[in-house]
């Protein structure tokens, strides 16, 4: 399961900003987008955990101290394709390009360093998670699991959460079938 992409759009042009927002939401979900009309608004928000930044050329130049280190995560909107020359090598979108071209550019940006986001998405359960799964399926309560494995209740809860995320299965019966299908427990251990 992918984490939402956190995106900041810093553009004074409201229509441009909303248009970009809706394109991102339509074509590249799941995204969480914050829009700022000025750079000050972004810095006063105090939020510096965005995965991607969208801004225009003049803001990029004006606040180069901020954007240059984040260059690989920043997309600059430029008015005409030649106008980008003054900028150091950056990702940019010519705003007058057709929708397809813009989408392609966006795609490149997102696939460029997609590994940072998806690397945690490891499908296989860890050994500990498998232990927890076995106990869940046998009908143990969270408290019992914690005692048996000598871990805290919170750890059990976070293992359960990870199991559900990795497998996409929420209910105990669903997990039971998954466990049998994958030989994590044998069907004789529990009654169905």
């Amino acid at each position, binding site marked *: 399961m992918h984490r939402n992409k956190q995106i900041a759009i810093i553009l004074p042009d409201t229509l441009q900003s909303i248009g970009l927002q809706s394109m991102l939401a339509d074509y590249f979900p799941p995204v969480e987008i914050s829009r700022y009309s000025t750079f000050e608004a972004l810095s006063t928000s105090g939020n510096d955990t965005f995965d991607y930044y969208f801004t225009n050329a003049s803001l990029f130049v004006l606040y180069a101290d901020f954007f240059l280190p984040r260059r690989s995560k920043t997309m600059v909107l430029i008015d005409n394709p030649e106008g980008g020359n003054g900028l150091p090598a950056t990702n940019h979108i010519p705003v007058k390009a057709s929708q397809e071209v813009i989408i392609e550019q966006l795609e490149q940006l997102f696939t460029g360093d997609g590994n940072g986001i998806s690397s945690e998405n490891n499908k296989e359960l860890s050994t500990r998670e498998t232990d927890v799964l076995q106990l869940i399926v046998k009908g143990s309560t969270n408290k019992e699991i914690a005692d048996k494995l000598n871990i805290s209740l919170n750890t059990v809860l976070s293992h359960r959460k990870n199991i559900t995320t990795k497998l996409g299965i929420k*209910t105990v019966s*669903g997990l039971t*079938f998954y466990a*049998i299908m994958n030989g994590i427990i044998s069907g004789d251990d529990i009654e169905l």
Partner: protein
Amino acid sequence: MSEVVEEHPSLIPVINRFGIHLGLGDKSVKAICEEYRLDCDFLLTVINTFLNEEYFPEKKLQTFHTSQIIDYLTKTNQYYQRYQIPNIERHLGSFISMSTPGNNTLNLIGKFFSSFKEELTSRIEKDDRSWFPYCLSLSEKLKGYPSSGQFEALHLGTEQRLEDPIEALLADLKSIMIKHLSGDYNENLCYAVIFAISSLEKDIKQHNRIRYRILTPMVSAMEKLCI
């Protein structure tokens, strides 16, 4: 009316629940409601919420009479029991028998489905035996009250709904098939099963929205008035 149904064939079971049959001709929704003596407003609201996930006018739905809502929920229950469940079972049965006999995964999926069916059946029985009659008796008791005052107290307790076990089971069933199926299987029948499960899932989601966000708050408001 026919235009809407042509565009959204998934509405056919919904209008059937209201007793409307196909062969709609060019009649308007209003004409059909008159013909079948239906509350046009209620029919439209149900159809609109069914088609549009975002559209859910709680206030408006709560102004309808308890018996209308219960009647609709009862009919959807019947529809699950008489058609959708047997339908999935049929597909699932041939899916399992037409695929490689040795594929144990499929048998397990069959068992998982049976356990889901048990859950759903027991909920429906409970609805028919106690929950729905109870709701109706409450509204019967309050007959004398002006109906507008009845729903003043309804803002409370909306979003505190827990995850519905039936919905969760169905979602897991689908997810197990899509993400974790292994071995040889018959692709065409597998798609039929998943498709049938998906449409049941969608229908139950709609049913649950009305159940938890309309009926439940209505009942708790009526309970307050009865005390």
